[in-house]
């Protein structure tokens, strides 16, 4: 940019003018206005409504907040929702690191194939992927047929409506969100660093834990953020595979708003979900800053 400015051409100067630090509002303004009207405003309204007392929105007392946070059932729902997010992050991490390592060690043609294998499920409807797990986990499903055929159990195991079944399904549904940022970061690691570690006598395990893992952490943080946010709010998977026995925050929002029609109480649950996700994101961001500063 400096070299062009040095030529002193009037046209060049005119064209450089908009490349300053200010936002070009005629271009960014329309989406900004649309987001203010249809994204920020509804979220502010959600926050405001949570403080109303009744469904007719007449009295502001904040009593629904008291009701929500003094009920042990809803406290356990928050805990269970957080736990689901954490366990899904853990499961996707354990599977994504090895696949990303294999990806980076593969030939370009194999990489192309693997990338399609990762992207395909991501772009397939969540409803379809949830449905797939019903076929797999049901009493007459793939896993139970295999167990009965092999004689591992005399009766079909209950897999639907269990935490295990739900985490397994969510692992498949969310894994691409972990893999894509992880692969992007791992690809950028200088192969000389890895070779140096090996040449200096470090085993493959030691090279992984002391060289590759620390260098991949920014990608992991990005992936973990997406997986956590997505699994915590995966209403369809939670309700279809978790069933009525396992209640999470999204189904409380759904029940209270569309079945019971208690909007203020549903708003409390929705704000709690928002805050839960934001807290998770902030913790992960803080972690990445600390790791980067090491």
């Amino acid at each position: 940019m400096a070299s062009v400015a040095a030529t002193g051409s009037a046209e060049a100067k005119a064209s450089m003018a908009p490349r300053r630090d200010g936002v070009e509002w005629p271009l960014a303004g329309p989406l900004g206005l649309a987001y203010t009207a249809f994204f920020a405003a509804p979220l502010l309204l959600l926050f405001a409504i949570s403080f109303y007392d009744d469904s007719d929105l007449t009295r502001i007392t904040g009593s629904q907040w008291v009701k929500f946070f003094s009920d042990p059932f809803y406290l356990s729902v928050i805990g269970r929702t957080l736990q689901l997010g954490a366990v899904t992050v853990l499961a996707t991490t354990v599977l994504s690191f090895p696949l990303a390592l294999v990806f980076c060690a593969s030939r370009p043609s194999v990489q192309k194939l693997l990338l399609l294998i990762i992207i395909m499920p991501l772009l397939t409807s969540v409803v379809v992927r949830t449905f797939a797990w019903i076929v797999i986990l049901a009493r007459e499903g793939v896993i139970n047929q295999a167990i009965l055929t092999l004689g591992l159990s005399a009766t079909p195991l209950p897999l639907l409506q269990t935490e295990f079944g739900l985490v397994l399904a969510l692992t498949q549904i969310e894994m691409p969100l972990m893999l894509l940022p992880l692969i992007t970061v791992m690809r950028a690691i200088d192969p000389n660093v890895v070779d140096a570690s090996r040449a200096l006598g470090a085993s493959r395990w030691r090279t992984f834990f002391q060289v590759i893992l620390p260098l991949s952490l920014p990608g992991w943080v990005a992936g973990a953020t997406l997986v956590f946010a997505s699994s915590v709010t995966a209403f369809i998977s939670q309700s279809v595979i978790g069933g009525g026995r396992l209640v999470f925050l999204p189904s409380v929002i759904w029940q209270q708003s569309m079945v019971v029609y208690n909007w203020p109480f549903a708003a409390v649950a929705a704000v709690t979900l928002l805050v839960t996700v934001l807290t998770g994101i902030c913790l992960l961001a803080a972690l990445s800053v600390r790791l980067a500063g090491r």
Partner: protein
Amino acid sequence: MARRSTPAEVSYKLVIGGLAGLAIAILVGPILVVLITSLTTAPSLKFPPPGLSFKWYEALFDPIRSRHIHVAASNTLWVAVGATLLVTLLGVAAAIGISGKRGVAARALENGFLGPLVLPTLAYGFAALMFFSLLGFRPSLPLLVIGHAVVIAPFVFRTTMASLTQLDPSLLESSASLGAGRFTTFRRITLPLIAPGIAAGAFLSFIASIDNVPVSLFLSNARTDMLPIRLWGMMESTLDVRVAAASGVLIASVVVLVVVMERLVGLSRRM
């Protein structure tokens, strides 16, 4: 690098290879299972199917028996087309207006426009329902277009921003120094170079709208039924095998579209 097979070497290869294999099986297995199940002759989801046929696809495409599914599918398609056109226009303009700017406002806008990617859209769906109800609107397809637009805009915005970042500034400078105005430079230089990024982003936005559950859950009703919501209803009540056939159609469409987009704009590099 030739090395002796130490126990560490062997265990590393076994564990990493095993887990990577498991990851691939978990990623692909369910999709294959659905495709096979959709071809069953049985009225249940028993796996493996007792026989293969296209009878559930015939039932799915039957205009009378599956009328409600067809209405939901056409609603879903129209909302996706409308919302994608809207966010492509607004998202590309916004990306150009922000890209390369370092001010506080630019950062705030960028984070705001990417917000729906990580914020729970379910909470937003419910918020949008209350917002539109209190303003006196009844559920309709235009409201769904607005609701979808908010949550799918980040995809096209993000890929366009990424393409603009990779743009060589010296190209724009040469164009300007050769006397081209800002608009000519945009039309002749910038737009052709960022077009693949825009196309990839518009495609991702479109798919996100087709698959959207959290917003449709709250903004659609019996009259403006959407496909994912109807399929969810069918899954919750009776396990209708037409859900497997509908899944088969959706999977096949995604496979075809992804392969085409990969050829045309290198989709996987832009995700």
